[in-house]
Protein backbone atom coordinates (compact mmCIF):
# COMPACT_ATOMS: atom_id res chain seq x y z
CA UNK A 1 0.00 0.00 0.00
CA UNK A 2 2.69 2.45 1.06
CA UNK A 3 5.05 1.37 -1.74
CA UNK A 4 3.20 2.98 -4.66
CA UNK A 5 2.71 6.17 -2.67
CA UNK A 6 6.45 6.47 -2.05
CA UNK A 7 7.10 5.65 -5.70
CA UNK A 8 4.75 8.42 -6.85
CA UNK A 9 6.25 10.86 -4.35
CA UNK A 10 9.75 10.02 -5.56
CA UNK A 11 8.85 10.33 -9.24
CA UNK A 12 7.12 13.61 -8.50
CA UNK A 13 10.13 14.86 -6.62
CA UNK A 14 12.47 13.92 -9.47
CA UNK A 15 10.15 15.65 -11.92
CA UNK A 16 10.08 18.66 -9.61
CA UNK A 17 13.89 18.76 -9.61
CA UNK A 18 13.81 18.85 -13.39
CA UNK A 19 11.36 21.75 -13.27
CA UNK A 20 13.62 23.46 -10.75
CA UNK A 21 16.63 23.27 -13.07
CA UNK A 22 14.51 24.60 -15.93
CA UNK A 23 13.05 27.49 -13.98
CA UNK A 24 15.57 28.74 -11.43
CA UNK A 25 17.37 30.97 -13.94
CA UNK A 26 14.14 32.63 -15.02
CA UNK A 27 13.16 33.23 -11.42
CA UNK A 28 16.39 35.05 -10.59
CA UNK A 29 16.50 37.13 -13.78
CA UNK A 30 12.85 38.07 -13.39
CA UNK A 31 13.52 39.13 -9.84
CA UNK A 32 16.44 41.30 -10.92
CA UNK A 33 15.17 43.02 -14.02
CA UNK A 34 11.44 42.25 -14.09
CA UNK A 35 12.07 41.06 -17.61
CA UNK A 36 9.37 38.62 -18.71
CA UNK A 37 11.39 36.13 -20.75
CA UNK A 38 9.00 33.71 -22.45
CA UNK A 39 11.86 32.38 -24.59
CA UNK A 40 13.51 30.81 -21.54
CA UNK A 41 12.46 27.30 -22.52
CA UNK A 42 13.81 27.84 -26.02
CA UNK A 43 17.26 27.91 -24.41
CA UNK A 44 16.37 24.72 -22.54
CA UNK A 45 15.35 23.14 -25.83
CA UNK A 46 18.66 24.26 -27.34
CA UNK A 47 20.52 22.41 -24.59
CA UNK A 48 18.47 19.30 -25.34
CA UNK A 49 19.28 19.43 -29.03
CA UNK A 50 22.98 19.97 -28.31
CA UNK A 51 23.01 16.75 -26.30
CA UNK A 52 21.05 14.87 -28.97
CA UNK A 53 23.38 16.05 -31.74
CA UNK A 54 26.58 15.30 -29.86
CA UNK A 55 25.38 11.83 -28.85
CA UNK A 56 23.74 10.67 -32.08
CA UNK A 57 25.91 12.38 -34.66
CA UNK A 58 29.31 12.37 -32.95
CA UNK A 59 28.91 9.45 -30.58
CA UNK A 60 29.80 11.31 -27.40
CA UNK A 61 28.92 9.72 -24.06
CA UNK A 62 25.84 11.23 -22.40
CA UNK A 63 27.63 12.68 -19.38
CA UNK A 64 30.24 14.45 -21.54
CA UNK A 65 27.52 16.26 -23.50
CA UNK A 66 25.97 17.85 -20.40
CA UNK A 67 28.61 20.60 -19.89
CA UNK A 68 28.27 21.48 -23.54
CA UNK A 69 24.51 21.71 -23.29
CA UNK A 70 25.09 24.19 -20.46
CA UNK A 71 27.78 26.15 -22.31
CA UNK A 72 26.03 26.46 -25.67
CA UNK A 73 22.76 27.58 -24.09
CA UNK A 74 24.62 30.12 -21.94
CA UNK A 75 26.63 31.55 -24.86
CA UNK A 76 23.67 31.79 -27.22
CA UNK A 77 21.55 33.42 -24.53
CA UNK A 78 24.17 36.06 -23.81
CA UNK A 79 24.31 36.92 -27.52
CA UNK A 80 20.55 37.47 -27.50
CA UNK A 81 20.77 39.42 -24.28
CA UNK A 82 23.35 41.81 -25.70
CA UNK A 83 21.63 42.26 -29.07
CA UNK A 84 17.91 42.27 -28.30
CA UNK A 85 16.89 41.95 -24.67
CA UNK A 86 18.83 44.82 -23.15
CA UNK A 87 17.03 47.32 -25.36
CA UNK A 88 13.75 46.40 -23.71
CA UNK A 89 14.61 46.51 -20.02
CA UNK A 90 12.66 49.71 -19.61
CA UNK A 91 9.89 48.76 -22.02
CA UNK A 92 6.41 47.61 -21.00
CA UNK A 93 5.52 44.03 -20.05
CA UNK A 94 3.68 43.73 -23.32
CA UNK A 95 6.71 44.54 -25.47
CA UNK A 96 8.82 42.05 -23.54
CA UNK A 97 6.17 39.36 -23.84
CA UNK A 98 5.87 39.97 -27.57
CA UNK A 99 9.59 39.96 -28.28
CA UNK A 100 10.24 36.78 -26.34
CA UNK A 101 7.14 34.98 -27.65
CA UNK A 102 8.38 35.89 -31.12
CA UNK A 103 11.78 34.36 -30.34
CA UNK A 104 10.10 31.24 -28.98
CA UNK A 105 8.05 30.89 -32.19
CA UNK A 106 11.22 31.23 -34.26
CA UNK A 107 13.06 28.66 -32.14
CA UNK A 108 10.22 26.15 -32.57
CA UNK A 109 10.25 26.64 -36.34
CA UNK A 110 14.03 26.35 -36.58
CA UNK A 111 14.05 23.18 -34.46
CA UNK A 112 11.33 21.69 -36.65
CA UNK A 113 13.26 22.63 -39.78
CA UNK A 114 16.56 21.15 -38.62
CA UNK A 115 15.42 18.10 -36.65
CA UNK A 116 11.85 17.48 -37.81
CA UNK A 117 8.82 17.34 -35.54
CA UNK A 118 9.48 13.82 -34.24
CA UNK A 119 10.62 12.91 -30.73
CA UNK A 120 14.42 12.64 -30.59
CA UNK A 121 15.61 9.12 -29.72
CA UNK A 122 18.36 8.98 -27.13
CA UNK A 123 20.08 5.88 -25.78
CA UNK A 124 21.05 6.33 -22.14
CA UNK A 125 24.29 4.65 -20.97
CA UNK A 126 23.73 1.34 -19.19
CA UNK A 127 24.78 2.63 -15.76
CA UNK A 128 21.90 5.10 -15.79
CA UNK A 129 19.26 2.57 -16.77
CA UNK A 130 17.24 0.21 -14.66
CA UNK A 131 16.30 0.72 -11.05
CA UNK A 132 17.34 -0.19 -7.55
CA UNK A 133 14.94 -1.63 -5.01
CA UNK A 134 15.08 -0.27 -1.49
CA UNK A 135 12.65 -1.73 1.06
CA UNK A 136 10.49 -3.12 -1.72
CA UNK A 137 10.15 0.18 -3.56
CA UNK A 138 11.80 0.58 -6.97
CA UNK A 139 13.72 3.79 -7.62
CA UNK A 140 14.78 4.58 -11.20
CA UNK A 141 18.53 5.08 -11.36
CA UNK A 142 18.21 7.91 -13.85
CA UNK A 143 15.81 9.72 -11.55
CA UNK A 144 18.19 9.26 -8.62
CA UNK A 145 20.94 10.73 -10.80
CA UNK A 146 18.68 13.65 -11.72
CA UNK A 147 17.85 14.36 -8.09
CA UNK A 148 21.54 14.21 -7.14
CA UNK A 149 22.50 16.64 -9.92
CA UNK A 150 19.72 19.06 -9.03
CA UNK A 151 20.50 18.98 -5.30
CA UNK A 152 24.22 19.56 -5.99
CA UNK A 153 23.38 22.53 -8.20
CA UNK A 154 20.99 23.93 -5.61
CA UNK A 155 23.70 23.77 -2.94
CA UNK A 156 26.20 25.40 -5.30
CA UNK A 157 23.79 28.18 -6.19
CA UNK A 158 22.80 28.89 -2.61
CA UNK A 159 26.44 28.91 -1.52
CA UNK A 160 27.45 31.18 -4.38
CA UNK A 161 24.60 33.55 -3.69
CA UNK A 162 25.16 33.64 0.07
CA UNK A 163 28.93 33.61 0.41
CA UNK A 164 30.50 35.28 -2.62
CA UNK A 165 30.92 38.92 -3.44
CA UNK A 166 29.11 38.42 -6.74
CA UNK A 167 26.23 36.69 -4.96
CA UNK A 168 25.89 39.66 -2.65
CA UNK A 169 25.70 41.99 -5.65
CA UNK A 170 23.00 39.86 -7.23
CA UNK A 171 20.99 39.82 -4.01
CA UNK A 172 21.32 43.57 -3.71
CA UNK A 173 20.12 44.02 -7.29
CA UNK A 174 17.11 41.77 -6.68
CA UNK A 175 16.20 43.60 -3.49
CA UNK A 176 16.46 47.11 -4.82
CA UNK A 177 17.86 47.69 -8.24
CA UNK A 178 18.11 51.46 -8.03
CA UNK A 179 19.79 51.40 -4.66
CA UNK A 180 22.28 48.81 -5.91
CA UNK A 181 23.10 51.04 -8.87
CA UNK A 182 23.50 53.96 -6.55
CA UNK A 183 26.08 52.02 -4.57
CA UNK A 184 28.12 51.55 -7.71
CA UNK A 185 27.24 47.91 -8.37
CA UNK A 186 27.42 47.04 -12.05
CA UNK A 187 23.84 45.77 -12.23
CA UNK A 188 23.81 45.34 -16.01
CA UNK A 189 26.95 43.23 -15.91
CA UNK A 190 25.68 41.16 -13.01
CA UNK A 191 22.41 40.72 -14.83
CA UNK A 192 24.03 39.60 -18.08
CA UNK A 193 26.08 37.03 -16.19
CA UNK A 194 23.09 35.78 -14.20
CA UNK A 195 21.06 35.60 -17.37
CA UNK A 196 23.70 33.44 -19.05
CA UNK A 197 23.98 31.25 -15.97
CA UNK A 198 20.19 30.82 -15.78
CA UNK A 199 19.90 29.98 -19.47
CA UNK A 200 22.81 27.58 -19.13
CA UNK A 201 21.02 25.80 -16.28
CA UNK A 202 17.91 25.67 -18.42
CA UNK A 203 20.01 24.13 -21.21
CA UNK A 204 21.30 21.54 -18.76
CA UNK A 205 17.73 20.91 -17.64
CA UNK A 206 16.66 20.47 -21.26
CA UNK A 207 19.41 17.91 -21.79
CA UNK A 208 18.46 16.02 -18.63
CA UNK A 209 14.75 16.21 -19.53
CA UNK A 210 15.07 14.13 -22.72
CA UNK A 211 15.02 10.82 -20.87
CA UNK A 212 12.01 11.81 -18.74
CA UNK A 213 9.71 13.81 -21.03
CA UNK A 214 11.27 13.50 -24.49
CA UNK A 215 12.33 16.27 -26.83
CA UNK A 216 10.52 17.72 -29.82
CA UNK A 217 10.07 21.29 -31.11
CA UNK A 218 6.97 21.88 -28.98
CA UNK A 219 9.20 21.67 -25.87
CA UNK A 220 9.73 25.46 -25.90
CA UNK A 221 6.03 26.04 -25.23
CA UNK A 222 4.93 22.92 -23.35
CA UNK A 223 7.45 23.40 -20.58
CA UNK A 224 7.34 27.16 -20.68
CA UNK A 225 3.95 26.87 -19.05
CA UNK A 226 5.30 24.64 -16.28
CA UNK A 227 8.29 26.92 -15.78
CA UNK A 228 6.10 30.00 -15.53
CA UNK A 229 3.90 28.21 -13.03
CA UNK A 230 6.92 27.37 -10.89
CA UNK A 231 8.29 30.90 -11.11
CA UNK A 232 5.06 32.67 -10.33
CA UNK A 233 4.10 30.29 -7.53
CA UNK A 234 7.57 30.34 -6.01
CA UNK A 235 7.95 34.09 -6.15
CA UNK A 236 10.45 36.10 -8.13
CA UNK A 237 14.14 36.11 -7.37
CA UNK A 238 13.97 33.37 -4.79
CA UNK A 239 15.93 30.12 -5.12
CA UNK A 240 14.25 28.59 -2.09
CA UNK A 241 10.86 29.61 -3.47
CA UNK A 242 11.59 28.04 -6.85
CA UNK A 243 12.75 24.87 -5.13
CA UNK A 244 9.64 24.60 -2.99
CA UNK A 245 7.31 25.45 -5.87
CA UNK A 246 9.02 23.04 -8.25
CA UNK A 247 8.71 20.23 -5.71
CA UNK A 248 5.06 21.05 -5.05
CA UNK A 249 4.16 21.30 -8.73
CA UNK A 250 6.19 18.22 -9.68
CA UNK A 251 4.58 16.04 -7.02
CA UNK A 252 1.03 17.31 -7.62
CA UNK A 253 1.41 16.84 -11.38
CA UNK A 254 2.73 13.27 -11.14
CA UNK A 255 0.28 12.35 -8.38
CA UNK A 256 -2.61 13.91 -10.29
CA UNK A 257 -1.75 12.02 -13.47
CA UNK A 258 -1.31 8.78 -11.51
CA UNK A 259 -4.41 8.84 -9.33
CA UNK A 260 -6.91 10.88 -11.39
CA UNK A 261 -5.67 10.56 -14.99
CA UNK A 262 -8.98 11.78 -16.42
CA UNK A 263 -8.29 15.26 -15.01
CA UNK A 264 -5.05 15.51 -16.99
CA UNK A 265 -3.20 18.73 -16.38
CA UNK A 266 -6.33 20.31 -14.90
CA UNK A 267 -5.11 19.86 -11.32
CA UNK A 268 -1.82 21.67 -11.81
CA UNK A 269 -3.43 24.71 -13.43
CA UNK A 270 -5.97 24.80 -10.63
CA UNK A 271 -3.20 24.69 -8.03
CA UNK A 272 -1.51 27.61 -9.77
CA UNK A 273 -4.56 29.84 -10.14
CA UNK A 274 -5.68 29.25 -6.56
CA UNK A 275 -2.19 29.84 -5.16
CA UNK A 276 -1.78 33.03 -7.17
CA UNK A 277 -5.15 34.33 -6.07
CA UNK A 278 -4.21 33.67 -2.47
CA UNK A 279 -0.70 35.11 -2.77
CA UNK A 280 -0.18 37.13 -5.97
CA UNK A 281 3.56 37.55 -5.32
CA UNK A 282 4.06 33.80 -4.94
CA UNK A 283 4.73 31.63 -1.90
CA UNK A 284 8.08 33.23 -1.09
CA UNK A 285 7.73 36.51 -2.96
CA UNK A 286 8.02 39.76 -1.12
CA UNK A 287 6.53 42.07 -3.72
Amino acid at each position, binding site marked *: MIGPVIGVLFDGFAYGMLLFLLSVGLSVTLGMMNFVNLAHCAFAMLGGYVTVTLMNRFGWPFLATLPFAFLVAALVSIAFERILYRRLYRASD*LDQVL*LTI*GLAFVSVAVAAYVYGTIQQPVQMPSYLRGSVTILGVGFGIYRLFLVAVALAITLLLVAALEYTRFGAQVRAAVDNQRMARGLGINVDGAFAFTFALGSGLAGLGGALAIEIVGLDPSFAFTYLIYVLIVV*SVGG*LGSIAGSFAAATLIGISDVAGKYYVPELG*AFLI*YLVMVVL*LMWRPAGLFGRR
Partner: protein
Amino acid sequence: MMSVTAASPHAYLERQARWTWIEAAFWAATLLPFWLTPNYLVLASQIAITALFALSLDLILGYAGIVSLGHAAFFGLGAYTAGLAAKHGWGEPITGLMLGALAAGIVGYAASFIVSRFRHLALIMITLGMGLLLHEAANSASWLTGGADGLQGVKMWPIFNKFRFDLWGYTAYTYSLIVLFLVFLVARRIIHSPFGLSLRGIRENALRMPAIGASSRAHLRKIYTISAVMAGIAGALLAQTTETVSLEALGFQRSADVLVILILGGAGRLYGGLVGAIIFMVARDQFSGNTPQFWYFWIGALLVAVVMFLPNGILGGIAKLASTWPGSFWRGKS
Protein backbone atom coordinates in the same frame (compact mmCIF):
# COMPACT_ATOMS: atom_id res chain seq x y z
CA MET B 1 -0.71 62.97 -29.52
CA MET B 2 -2.97 65.92 -30.11
CA SER B 3 -2.89 68.72 -27.65
CA VAL B 4 -5.96 68.76 -25.45
CA THR B 5 -7.06 71.97 -23.89
CA ALA B 6 -8.25 71.39 -20.36
CA ALA B 7 -11.39 73.44 -20.88
CA SER B 8 -12.97 71.26 -23.53
CA PRO B 9 -12.89 67.53 -22.85
CA HIS B 10 -16.28 67.21 -24.51
CA ALA B 11 -15.10 69.04 -27.59
CA TYR B 12 -12.09 66.73 -27.64
CA LEU B 13 -14.27 63.62 -27.45
CA GLU B 14 -16.60 64.94 -30.11
CA ARG B 15 -13.71 65.67 -32.40
CA GLN B 16 -12.38 62.16 -31.83
CA ALA B 17 -15.76 60.59 -32.48
CA ARG B 18 -16.33 62.26 -35.82
CA TRP B 19 -16.34 59.85 -38.77
CA THR B 20 -13.56 60.37 -41.29
CA TRP B 21 -13.76 59.49 -44.95
CA ILE B 22 -11.03 56.90 -44.46
CA GLU B 23 -13.27 55.01 -42.09
CA ALA B 24 -16.16 55.15 -44.53
CA ALA B 25 -13.87 53.95 -47.31
CA PHE B 26 -12.67 51.08 -45.12
CA TRP B 27 -16.17 49.82 -44.44
CA ALA B 28 -17.18 50.25 -48.08
CA ALA B 29 -14.13 48.18 -49.04
CA THR B 30 -15.33 45.32 -46.84
CA LEU B 31 -18.12 44.81 -49.40
CA LEU B 32 -15.65 44.30 -52.25
CA PRO B 33 -15.10 40.55 -51.69
CA PHE B 34 -18.68 39.91 -52.88
CA TRP B 35 -17.67 41.02 -56.38
CA LEU B 36 -13.87 40.77 -56.54
CA THR B 37 -13.15 37.48 -54.80
CA PRO B 38 -16.43 35.52 -54.59
CA ASN B 39 -14.43 32.29 -54.25
CA TYR B 40 -12.86 33.50 -51.01
CA LEU B 41 -16.01 34.44 -49.08
CA VAL B 42 -15.42 31.65 -46.55
CA LEU B 43 -11.99 33.11 -45.82
CA ALA B 44 -13.53 36.59 -45.71
CA SER B 45 -16.02 35.47 -43.07
CA GLN B 46 -13.18 33.99 -41.02
CA ILE B 47 -11.33 37.29 -41.31
CA ALA B 48 -14.38 39.18 -40.07
CA ILE B 49 -14.67 36.82 -37.09
CA THR B 50 -10.97 37.11 -36.27
CA ALA B 51 -11.20 40.88 -36.59
CA LEU B 52 -14.08 40.89 -34.09
CA PHE B 53 -12.02 38.77 -31.70
CA ALA B 54 -9.03 41.10 -32.08
CA LEU B 55 -11.30 44.10 -31.49
CA SER B 56 -12.47 42.57 -28.21
CA LEU B 57 -8.85 42.14 -27.12
CA ASP B 58 -8.06 45.69 -28.19
CA LEU B 59 -10.61 47.03 -25.71
CA ILE B 60 -8.81 45.49 -22.74
CA LEU B 61 -5.23 45.47 -24.01
CA GLY B 62 -5.02 48.53 -26.20
CA TYR B 63 -7.25 50.79 -24.15
CA ALA B 64 -7.19 49.48 -20.59
CA GLY B 65 -3.69 47.97 -20.60
CA ILE B 66 -4.70 44.48 -19.42
CA VAL B 67 -2.23 42.04 -20.98
CA SER B 68 -4.10 38.77 -21.47
CA LEU B 69 -2.60 35.51 -22.68
CA GLY B 70 -5.86 33.64 -22.26
CA HIS B 71 -8.47 35.58 -24.18
CA ALA B 72 -9.36 32.50 -26.24
CA ALA B 73 -11.18 31.26 -23.13
CA PHE B 74 -14.12 33.56 -23.91
CA PHE B 75 -13.93 32.90 -27.63
CA GLY B 76 -14.16 29.17 -26.91
CA LEU B 77 -16.96 29.62 -24.38
CA GLY B 78 -19.05 31.48 -26.93
CA ALA B 79 -18.24 28.90 -29.59
CA TYR B 80 -19.13 25.91 -27.42
CA THR B 81 -22.31 27.51 -26.08
CA ALA B 82 -23.60 28.38 -29.54
CA GLY B 83 -22.46 25.03 -30.92
CA LEU B 84 -24.08 23.03 -28.12
CA ALA B 85 -27.32 24.97 -28.41
CA ALA B 86 -27.50 24.18 -32.12
CA LYS B 87 -26.53 20.56 -31.60
CA HIS B 88 -29.28 20.01 -29.05
CA GLY B 89 -32.09 21.35 -31.16
CA TRP B 90 -31.94 25.14 -31.04
CA GLY B 91 -30.27 26.16 -34.30
CA GLU B 92 -31.64 29.69 -34.47
CA PRO B 93 -28.54 31.83 -35.21
CA ILE B 94 -29.38 35.19 -33.62
CA THR B 95 -30.48 33.81 -30.26
CA GLY B 96 -27.57 31.35 -30.43
CA LEU B 97 -25.24 34.30 -30.77
CA MET B 98 -26.83 35.92 -27.74
CA LEU B 99 -26.50 32.71 -25.74
CA GLY B 100 -22.79 32.57 -26.61
CA ALA B 101 -22.37 36.20 -25.62
CA LEU B 102 -24.24 35.61 -22.38
CA ALA B 103 -22.14 32.59 -21.36
CA ALA B 104 -18.88 34.40 -22.11
CA GLY B 105 -20.17 37.50 -20.34
CA ILE B 106 -21.09 35.65 -17.15
CA VAL B 107 -17.73 33.91 -16.94
CA GLY B 108 -15.98 37.13 -17.94
CA TYR B 109 -17.79 39.03 -15.19
CA ALA B 110 -16.75 36.43 -12.62
CA ALA B 111 -13.16 36.44 -13.91
CA SER B 112 -13.03 40.24 -13.96
CA PHE B 113 -13.04 40.33 -10.16
CA ILE B 114 -9.81 38.34 -10.22
CA VAL B 115 -8.24 40.06 -13.20
CA SER B 116 -8.79 43.62 -12.00
CA ARG B 117 -6.80 42.93 -8.83
CA PHE B 118 -3.53 42.04 -10.56
CA ARG B 119 -0.95 43.59 -12.81
CA HIS B 120 2.33 42.57 -14.44
CA LEU B 121 3.51 38.98 -14.27
CA ALA B 122 0.76 37.77 -11.94
CA LEU B 123 -1.85 39.09 -14.37
CA ILE B 124 -0.21 37.39 -17.35
CA MET B 125 0.01 34.13 -15.41
CA ILE B 126 -3.58 34.28 -14.14
CA THR B 127 -5.05 34.91 -17.59
CA LEU B 128 -2.82 32.18 -19.04
CA GLY B 129 -3.81 29.82 -16.24
CA MET B 130 -7.53 30.44 -16.65
CA GLY B 131 -7.26 29.83 -20.40
CA LEU B 132 -5.40 26.57 -19.86
CA LEU B 133 -7.85 25.53 -17.15
CA LEU B 134 -10.80 25.93 -19.47
CA HIS B 135 -8.97 24.15 -22.29
CA GLU B 136 -8.27 21.18 -20.03
CA ALA B 137 -11.84 21.19 -18.76
CA ALA B 138 -13.22 21.06 -22.31
CA ASN B 139 -10.72 18.35 -23.16
CA SER B 140 -11.73 16.26 -20.17
CA ALA B 141 -15.48 16.72 -20.64
CA SER B 142 -15.50 14.89 -23.95
CA TRP B 143 -19.06 13.59 -23.31
CA LEU B 144 -20.19 17.19 -23.72
CA THR B 145 -17.69 18.79 -26.06
CA GLY B 146 -16.48 15.84 -28.14
CA GLY B 147 -13.00 16.33 -26.68
CA ALA B 148 -10.13 16.35 -29.14
CA ASP B 149 -12.43 15.26 -31.99
CA GLY B 150 -14.35 18.50 -31.81
CA LEU B 151 -18.07 19.12 -31.52
CA GLN B 152 -19.88 17.37 -34.35
CA GLY B 153 -23.47 17.55 -35.51
CA VAL B 154 -24.05 21.30 -35.25
CA LYS B 155 -27.06 22.09 -37.44
CA MET B 156 -27.92 25.73 -38.04
CA TRP B 157 -31.32 27.00 -39.09
CA PRO B 158 -31.52 29.70 -41.76
CA ILE B 159 -31.17 33.26 -40.48
CA PHE B 160 -34.68 34.78 -40.04
CA ASN B 161 -35.89 31.47 -41.52
CA LYS B 162 -34.85 32.83 -44.88
CA PHE B 163 -31.09 32.95 -45.49
CA ARG B 164 -29.59 29.48 -45.49
CA PHE B 165 -25.87 29.03 -44.70
CA ASP B 166 -24.44 28.07 -48.11
CA LEU B 167 -21.28 26.28 -49.14
CA TRP B 168 -19.69 29.36 -50.68
CA GLY B 169 -19.89 31.46 -47.55
CA TYR B 170 -22.20 34.08 -49.03
CA THR B 171 -24.54 34.10 -46.05
CA ALA B 172 -21.68 33.47 -43.63
CA TYR B 173 -19.76 36.55 -44.75
CA THR B 174 -22.81 38.80 -44.85
CA TYR B 175 -23.82 37.64 -41.38
CA SER B 176 -20.30 37.94 -39.89
CA LEU B 177 -19.75 41.34 -41.46
CA ILE B 178 -23.02 42.77 -40.15
CA VAL B 179 -22.30 41.46 -36.65
CA LEU B 180 -18.74 42.81 -36.83
CA PHE B 181 -19.99 46.23 -37.90
CA LEU B 182 -22.63 46.41 -35.17
CA VAL B 183 -20.18 45.38 -32.46
CA PHE B 184 -17.61 47.79 -33.88
CA LEU B 185 -20.13 50.63 -33.54
CA VAL B 186 -20.60 49.71 -29.88
CA ALA B 187 -16.84 49.56 -29.29
CA ARG B 188 -16.36 52.88 -31.05
CA ARG B 189 -19.03 54.47 -28.91
CA ILE B 190 -17.41 53.11 -25.73
CA ILE B 191 -13.96 54.33 -26.69
CA HIS B 192 -15.18 57.84 -27.45
CA SER B 193 -17.08 58.19 -24.20
CA PRO B 194 -15.80 59.60 -20.91
CA PHE B 195 -15.61 55.97 -19.73
CA GLY B 196 -13.27 55.17 -22.62
CA LEU B 197 -11.16 58.18 -21.75
CA SER B 198 -10.78 57.07 -18.15
CA LEU B 199 -9.73 53.61 -19.36
CA ARG B 200 -6.88 55.24 -21.22
CA GLY B 201 -6.03 57.08 -18.04
CA ILE B 202 -5.80 53.77 -16.18
CA ARG B 203 -3.58 52.38 -18.92
CA GLU B 204 -1.22 55.33 -18.67
CA ASN B 205 -1.07 55.57 -14.90
CA ALA B 206 -2.83 53.01 -12.74
CA LEU B 207 -1.99 54.75 -9.48
CA ARG B 208 -3.00 58.24 -10.43
CA MET B 209 -6.51 57.43 -11.64
CA PRO B 210 -7.82 56.29 -8.23
CA ALA B 211 -6.03 59.29 -6.73
CA ILE B 212 -8.10 61.70 -8.81
CA GLY B 213 -11.30 59.90 -7.93
CA ALA B 214 -11.82 57.36 -10.71
CA SER B 215 -12.71 53.89 -9.53
CA SER B 216 -10.18 52.03 -11.61
CA ARG B 217 -11.09 48.50 -10.55
CA ALA B 218 -14.75 49.00 -11.33
CA HIS B 219 -13.80 50.41 -14.74
CA LEU B 220 -11.51 47.47 -15.43
CA ARG B 221 -14.22 44.99 -14.41
CA LYS B 222 -16.69 46.67 -16.72
CA ILE B 223 -14.47 46.71 -19.79
CA TYR B 224 -13.23 43.17 -19.15
CA THR B 225 -16.82 41.89 -19.08
CA ILE B 226 -17.68 43.82 -22.25
CA SER B 227 -14.60 42.43 -23.94
CA ALA B 228 -15.51 38.88 -22.87
CA VAL B 229 -19.00 39.32 -24.35
CA MET B 230 -17.52 40.45 -27.65
CA ALA B 231 -15.06 37.55 -27.73
CA GLY B 232 -17.97 35.23 -27.02
CA ILE B 233 -19.90 36.66 -29.96
CA ALA B 234 -16.87 36.08 -32.21
CA GLY B 235 -16.61 32.48 -31.02
CA ALA B 236 -20.32 31.87 -31.51
CA LEU B 237 -20.04 33.27 -35.04
CA LEU B 238 -17.24 30.83 -35.84
CA ALA B 239 -19.22 27.90 -34.45
CA GLN B 240 -22.31 28.87 -36.45
CA THR B 241 -20.61 29.60 -39.77
CA THR B 242 -18.36 26.51 -39.73
CA GLU B 243 -20.99 24.29 -38.00
CA THR B 244 -18.33 22.70 -35.82
CA VAL B 245 -16.26 23.60 -32.75
CA SER B 246 -12.77 22.23 -32.24
CA LEU B 247 -10.78 22.23 -29.03
CA GLU B 248 -8.41 24.64 -30.74
CA ALA B 249 -11.02 27.39 -30.25
CA LEU B 250 -9.91 27.47 -26.60
CA GLY B 251 -6.21 26.86 -27.14
CA PHE B 252 -3.19 28.90 -26.16
CA GLN B 253 -2.31 29.19 -29.84
CA ARG B 254 -5.47 31.16 -30.51
CA SER B 255 -4.75 33.52 -27.61
CA ALA B 256 -1.24 34.07 -28.94
CA ASP B 257 -2.44 34.51 -32.52
CA VAL B 258 -4.94 37.20 -31.63
CA LEU B 259 -2.27 39.02 -29.65
CA VAL B 260 0.01 38.90 -32.69
CA ILE B 261 -2.79 40.16 -34.93
CA LEU B 262 -3.57 43.08 -32.68
CA ILE B 263 0.07 44.08 -32.22
CA LEU B 264 0.75 43.75 -35.92
CA GLY B 265 -2.13 46.06 -36.76
CA GLY B 266 -1.55 48.39 -33.83
CA ALA B 267 -3.11 48.16 -30.36
CA GLY B 268 -5.20 50.98 -28.96
CA ARG B 269 -6.48 52.30 -32.27
CA LEU B 270 -9.79 50.50 -33.02
CA TYR B 271 -8.85 49.57 -36.58
CA GLY B 272 -5.60 47.90 -35.52
CA GLY B 273 -7.19 44.52 -34.91
CA LEU B 274 -9.19 44.75 -38.14
CA VAL B 275 -6.20 45.58 -40.33
CA GLY B 276 -4.06 43.02 -38.51
CA ALA B 277 -6.69 40.31 -39.04
CA ILE B 278 -6.86 40.99 -42.77
CA ILE B 279 -3.08 40.84 -43.19
CA PHE B 280 -2.58 37.85 -40.88
CA MET B 281 -5.38 35.69 -42.28
CA VAL B 282 -4.61 36.41 -45.94
CA ALA B 283 -0.90 35.76 -45.38
CA ARG B 284 -1.64 32.53 -43.54
CA ASP B 285 -3.99 31.41 -46.28
CA GLN B 286 -1.34 32.09 -48.91
CA PHE B 287 1.84 30.95 -47.20
CA SER B 288 1.18 28.40 -44.49
CA GLY B 289 0.25 25.50 -46.80
CA ASN B 290 0.98 22.16 -45.18
CA THR B 291 3.90 23.25 -43.00
CA PRO B 292 2.46 25.36 -40.20
CA GLN B 293 5.76 25.33 -38.27
CA PHE B 294 7.48 27.47 -40.87
CA TRP B 295 4.60 29.90 -40.87
CA TYR B 296 5.36 30.49 -37.21
CA PHE B 297 8.95 31.27 -38.05
CA TRP B 298 7.77 34.29 -40.00
CA ILE B 299 5.24 35.24 -37.35
CA GLY B 300 7.98 35.13 -34.74
CA ALA B 301 10.41 37.13 -36.83
CA LEU B 302 7.67 39.64 -37.58
CA LEU B 303 6.90 40.04 -33.87
CA VAL B 304 10.54 40.72 -33.08
CA ALA B 305 10.69 43.25 -35.91
CA VAL B 306 7.48 45.00 -34.86
CA VAL B 307 8.61 45.32 -31.24
CA MET B 308 12.03 46.58 -32.29
CA PHE B 309 11.17 48.91 -35.14
CA LEU B 310 7.42 49.56 -35.23
CA PRO B 311 6.26 49.87 -31.63
CA ASN B 312 2.74 51.00 -32.51
CA GLY B 313 2.04 48.45 -35.22
CA ILE B 314 1.34 49.04 -38.89
CA LEU B 315 -1.34 51.66 -38.28
CA GLY B 316 0.97 53.43 -35.84
CA GLY B 317 3.69 53.51 -38.48
CA ILE B 318 1.28 54.89 -41.07
CA ALA B 319 0.00 57.50 -38.63
CA LYS B 320 3.55 58.57 -37.91
CA LEU B 321 4.30 58.89 -41.62
CA ALA B 322 1.08 60.78 -42.24
CA SER B 323 1.61 63.18 -39.35
CA THR B 324 4.88 64.36 -40.86
CA TRP B 325 2.95 65.58 -43.87
CA PRO B 326 1.46 69.05 -43.76
CA GLY B 327 -2.33 69.11 -43.55
CA SER B 328 -2.39 65.64 -42.09
CA PHE B 329 -5.77 63.90 -42.21
CA TRP B 330 -4.87 61.09 -39.83
CA ARG B 331 -5.24 61.59 -36.13
CA GLY B 332 -2.42 60.73 -33.79
CA LYS B 333 -2.64 57.90 -31.30
CA SER B 334 -5.88 58.23 -29.41
